[in-house]
């Protein structure tokens, strides 16, 4: 664990006034017998974008999915340590993962709109959580599509199937769908790796707009993207095959990319491996 990280955990890092949105301590993660992540301790700053980088298979997506307990859906997974969301352990007994996921939304690598209309896609979450009146739903749908920068493109075709949109539009539709339930945190698992460059630009702009109100965590393969969009960066690495991955370094993005403290981080960001 780097000094900077220890300092970050001891209190808030220099320049921040609020406590972390997520505080993860000594997290261990297992897929059955396979020990996938070890000794992960990190804080996720609220109203900022935090990027997780590292080579393929380094556990960054796995770690992301521990934050909203999506891994619970995979049989045989096990978590040790604590993941505090606003000082409450999300893995504590009795915590409802369904409510957690409403507060901590997720965007996936492959855009995955439901096979229903654009309107119904966005209205899905609000309907789940009890919004029934047509007028209220109309309002949420419009607002969410606007926040996802998709409204102008789809406002006249809301009844059309979500799957008829282009890949990039589909991804923004998925973002609108998540925003409609007003999450506090948005976890993005390589949201741009399956869409065209113009759409990537739009999604990145969107992240900058959203972070005023939402805490964003993004897993990305693309170091330029991490450097462009994030305020903080965490570098994960699995040093040997079949060994648990670790968090190597965590810092402000500018610092991590310009003066990494760990040799392995430097090797990775300068393209020496991975």
């Amino acid at each position, binding site marked *: 664990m780097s000094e900077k990280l220890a300092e970050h955990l001891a209190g808030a890092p220099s320049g921040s006034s609020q406590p972390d949105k997520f505080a993860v301590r000594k997290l261990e993660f297992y897929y059955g017998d396979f020990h996938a992540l070890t000794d992960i301790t990190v804080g996720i700053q609220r109203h900022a974008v935090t990027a997780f980088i590292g080579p393929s298979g380094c556990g960054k997506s796995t770690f992301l999915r521990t934050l909203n307990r999506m891994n619970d859906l995979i049989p045989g997974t096990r978590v040790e340590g604590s993941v505090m969301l606003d000082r409450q352990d999300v893995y504590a007994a009795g915590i409802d993962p*369904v409510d*957690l*996921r409403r507060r901590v939304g997720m965007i*996936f690598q492959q855009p*995955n*709109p439901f*096979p229903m209309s654009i309107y119904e896609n966005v209205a899905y979450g609000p309907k*789940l*959580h009890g919004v029934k009146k047509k007028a209220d739903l109309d309002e949420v749908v419009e607002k969410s599509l606007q926040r996802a920068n998709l409204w102008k493109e789809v406002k006249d075709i809301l009844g059309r199937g979500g799957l008829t949109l282009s890949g990039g539009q589909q991804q923004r539709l998925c973002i609108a769908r998540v925003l409609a339930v007003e999450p506090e945190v948005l976890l993005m698992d390589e949201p741009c790796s399956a869409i065209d460059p113009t759409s990537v630009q739009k999604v990145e702009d969107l992240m900058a707009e959203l972070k005023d109100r939402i805490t964003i965590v993004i897993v990305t393969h693309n170091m330029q993207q991490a450097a462009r969009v994030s305020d903080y960066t965490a570098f994960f690495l699995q040093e040997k095959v079949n060994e648990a991955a670790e968090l190597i370094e965590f810092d402000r993005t500018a610092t991590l990319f310009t003066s990494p403290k760990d040799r392995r981080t430097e090797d990775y960001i300068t393209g020496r491996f991975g």
Partner: protein
Amino acid sequence: MTLRDEPAASTAPRADVADSRGPDAPTLSTISRSTYLKEAALKNLFLVCAFVAVAAVLLIFMFVGYRGWPIFAKTGLAAFLGGLQWQPTAEQPQFGILALIINSLIATLGGLALGAPLAVGTAVFLSEVATPRVREWVRPAVELLAGIPSVVYGLFGLLALRPIIAQASGGLGFGFATAWIVLAVMILPTIAAISEDALRSIPSGIREASYAMGATKWQTIWRVLLPAAKIGIIDAIILGMGRAIGETMAVVMVAGNAKVIPDGIFKPFLTLTTVIVIDMPYASGDHRTALFGVAIVLFLISMAFVAAIRVISRLGGEQS
């Protein structure tokens, strides 16, 4: 060819090539005559296979049509399809099959009403709820149900189910109620298997997206997965309907087969399929022709089901 011959054989052409295309240019071999003939023969073999299926359908349709057509001319199409009286051996024979059509529909729809929800529920259980271990036990059981001969279903209905229904209803136990239960179990594996395929073919990302929005398992199944698999499930139900309306042996054993219009669900009845088995052994003349007429109607109903599946699938394809 022996190993020793090989180098000589392969170096000879290479020397030629070296002259015109440079030292290491690989040569492209030409297609050999035997390969060409083999490919052509295979293509035609498969064509013949496909042709047999098409020819069989055409031949059966032509045969049934040829034998049954005169009855339409004799009684008139309206009287045949719209007549309520099936009195083929009366002094003044009457060949109205409307009651048979309605009985077939009642038997089918009742079986469907019982069987389809059960089958879709089974599909949801297998695809979304069961652990792999449980699934490996339940699925073969459901598949086995599809393999039981219909006469065994009939026997079960006749000897196990009918007495219970008889006791409950105070009659003989022959009738729609018994047939519905037998048909429901018979169509269950068809509908369950195809619905399960439809559910499993939904990309897992769709499930994850729903869970990631704070949906429960039940909400995900009810609001996302079943609507997404809608087309496949409707196809499955229509196929089940086709199976039920065409089912003969199991129905004939529990239906009672009376040539009167039943006035209750516990009363004997006759359907489009059962009338053919019951009457054919002794039918002659117009009566026999009329039974072929019934077969034409059954044929057209099945064709309508197949057409419905195609239309629905196409509509579904355009929708998403």
